[in-house]
């Protein structure tokens, strides 16, 4: 028998105390969605079931008790920390869900400069950890645009990737160990070691679970020496994305590890670089960093490769460094963007995929052409590649549309989901992945079985094994 909302709240209050169980209606309504339904949030139109409570967890023990209670009574829980999700992973899919908020678990437990690793509770903002590391001449190497607002637990839970990933890797390459709590209250710690060959790498059961298997309470990540004085920016304009992808491939295959390696199509370049590019220009840019010899050799190696493509025209590096220094989102930018949307009903959305070098340009061209052709009211359709690997790269589709003739609650069904659908279809058709770094959330679950193919068996079995009663973030990753 399901518990009433009042009974759920009362039980939570007994676990964490009344002050840490939030039942304010405005908070609950806001907590029913994430940025996937940002238009609804901006216009204060809400259609998702309202959670029973937001509970502020302050310790691993409290998280364990909450999950034990939820598992026993079949209460759906949604783990969150910084609440910056974009794919519906924080939406309450069923009524009377409980949001477990870990943002109050915000202590940096250690910065170990000798073993080059830092341990932080789940609610530590990445910016705070990064600032503390830099005080010792170190860096996490992780720098998503959400760095000022995202927290460590959420970043690990969503398999975050940062702007310097081509050198430092994604968060999965940085996490050396962690602590997580599973349904029933089982606390597990994965120890911090450089590497081990002791069976499957169980970190990956937790990393990227999106709150659908467990709640991450603590993470240990690698640290790297920080040499900002050696950062070298390089930029070129060129006329087509195909050449841009080809240059990225040559750089990666040649073994040069720029921390930033990107190519922007003309639409996306127009948003960022209109002060120095022509309207039909693509922009290719790199940042080399590290110890002096490494940064110098990397920059020179990349420049030599680009020189083999005479259609690429060099631009003043200062344009690139100035742009890069203003790239991260902070609260003021988010507020300004919300106001722009409120007045214009012009919405910016993004969808990121990955594919091998043979397919990426085809996916980009096909998806872009179909979206312009099939979706109404598009005001900009573009994108860029921003994370490259030896065998391929990603494509970050960046698009804007005017919401016309429908209310905010229908924006996802009229525009956003059909666009995601086109991108996923064109990607799957060519063997790519429908999600490069934002997570599946709830938005991309319609395509998750096609994404996994026969390996969906492993994913589904994990879910059944660790969450047998289905209380963890219902509808996320695994379709409801």
């Amino acid at each position, binding site marked *: 028998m399901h518990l009433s909302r009042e009974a759920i709240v009362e039980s939570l209050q007994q676990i964490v105390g009344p*002050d840490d169980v939030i039942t304010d209606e405005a908070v609950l309504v806001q907590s029913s969605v994430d940025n996937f339904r940002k238009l609804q949030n901006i216009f204060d139109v809400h259609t998702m079931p309202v959670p029973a409570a937001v509970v502020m967890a302050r310790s691993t023990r409290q998280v364990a008790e909450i999950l034990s209670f939820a598992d026993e009574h079949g209460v759906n829980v949604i783990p969150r920390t910084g609440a910056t999700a974009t794919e519906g992973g924080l939406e309450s899919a069923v009524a009377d869900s409980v949001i477990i908020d870990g943002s109050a678990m915000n202590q940096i437990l250690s910065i170990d400069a000798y073993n080059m690793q830092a341990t932080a509770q789940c609610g530590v903002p990445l910016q705070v950890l990064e600032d503390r590391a830099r005080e010792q001449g170190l860096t996490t190497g992780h720098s998503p645009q959400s760095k000022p607002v995202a927290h460590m637990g959420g970043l690990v839970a969503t398999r975050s990737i940062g702007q310097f990933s081509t050198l430092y890797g994604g968060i999965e390459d940085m996490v050396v160990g962690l602590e997580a709590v599973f349904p029933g209250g089982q606390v597990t710690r994965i120890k911090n070691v450089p590497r081990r060959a002791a069976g499957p790498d169980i970190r990956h059961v937790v990393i990227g679970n999106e709150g659908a298997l467990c709640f991450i309470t603590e993470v240990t990540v690698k640290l790297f020496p920080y040499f900002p004085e050696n950062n070298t920016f390089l930029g070129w304009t060129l006329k087509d994305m195909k050449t841009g992808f080809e240059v990225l491939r040559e750089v990666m295959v040649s073994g040069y590890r720029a921390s930033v390696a990107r190519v922007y199509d003309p639409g996306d370049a*127009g948003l*960022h*670089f*209109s*002060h120095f590019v022509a*309207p039909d220009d693509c922009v290719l840019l790199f940042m080399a960093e590290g110890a002096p010899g490494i940064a110098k050799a990397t920059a020179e190696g990349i420049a030599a490769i680009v020189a083999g493509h005479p259609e690429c025209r060099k631009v*003043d590096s*200062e*344009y690139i*460094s*100035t*742009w890069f*220094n*203003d790239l991260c989102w902070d609260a003021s930018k988010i507020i300004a963007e919300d*106001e*722009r949307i409120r*007045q*214009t009903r*012009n919405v910016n959305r993004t969808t990121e995929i990955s594919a091998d070098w043979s397919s990426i340009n085809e996916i980009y061209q096909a998806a872009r052409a179909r979206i*312009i052709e099939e979706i109404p*009211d*598009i*005001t*900009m*359709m573009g994108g860029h590649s921003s994370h490259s690997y030896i065998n391929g790269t990603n494509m970050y589709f960046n698009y*804007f*549309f*005017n919401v016309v003739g429908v209310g905010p609650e229908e924006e996802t069904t009229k525009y956003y989901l059909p666009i995601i659908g086109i991108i996923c279809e064109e990607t799957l058709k060519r063997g790519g992945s429908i999600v490069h770094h934002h997570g599946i959330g709830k938005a991309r679950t319609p395509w998750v079985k096609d994404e996994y193919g026969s390996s969906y068996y492993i994913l589904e079995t994990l879910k059944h094994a660790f969450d047998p009663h289905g209380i963890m973030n219902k509808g996320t990753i695994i379709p409801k």
Partner: protein
Amino acid sequence: MSALRILVSFKVTPDFEALREADWLAGAAHDAARGVETRYVRRVLNCFDESALELALRLSDARAERGFATRLGAFSVGGRETAPYLKTLLALGYERAARVEPEAALDFAPAVTASIIAGYARQVDHSALLLLGCRSGPGDSGTVPFLVAEKLGWPCLTQVIEVEPLADDRVRVACMVDDGLLRVTLRLPCVLAVGNAVVSQLRVPTLTDRLARRDKRIDVVEAADLGVDIAGELSREPCVLTGLEAIDRSRPGVIIGGASPREKARVLYDSHLKSLIEKL
């Protein structure tokens, strides 16, 4: 009856928000005569001009609902960086787009800028209503709208936040004044200097709109053809940038202590908010 011709003059400025404090300090310390280096930051519409451009579109829409015809024009004193914005405005329904590319930088040269805008409005555009932002970025004098009005011999209203149609040749305008909101009815022609309007964002054209109007031309006008001698007028400008100085905007703060959010909220209320609320 002929259509009302409205002209909006706008400026494309560096995105000063994208400059770091170090950029400002470098400008102050090393190159005061030239000012802060803004070449490398992206360009944006001056925010007050953006309001003016959207208000003009809304006025045109509202006039159309009342059966009054309107023809919108967009104008800028600036280089090629203005072209993407003029293209956007054409796609949004502005029927005329023009720019004057000055042969010298016109920062801190309000009289020259005003001469060009007034010259274009009178001699080329023949507009009866001119909207422009009340000021632009840092270092701007805020005098351009007044100087334009003076050169045209038209009345000028400042801190305009709303414009609505009243009759074919009249508009009703709301302006912020020291102690409230002033609503006046204006017979045209006039200059409206747009202030801190609620409408602050320009609508966005679709790709279809852009395609439909892609062949519309941007006119590039010579200042000399408007009777403006830029070099001569610049030599008579009374304002010269002599230096930059950082203003300390830091404010004292208090970190509120307490064992729980409830306790912290209580301290905040008792020590700060309560007295403010009582004054209301």
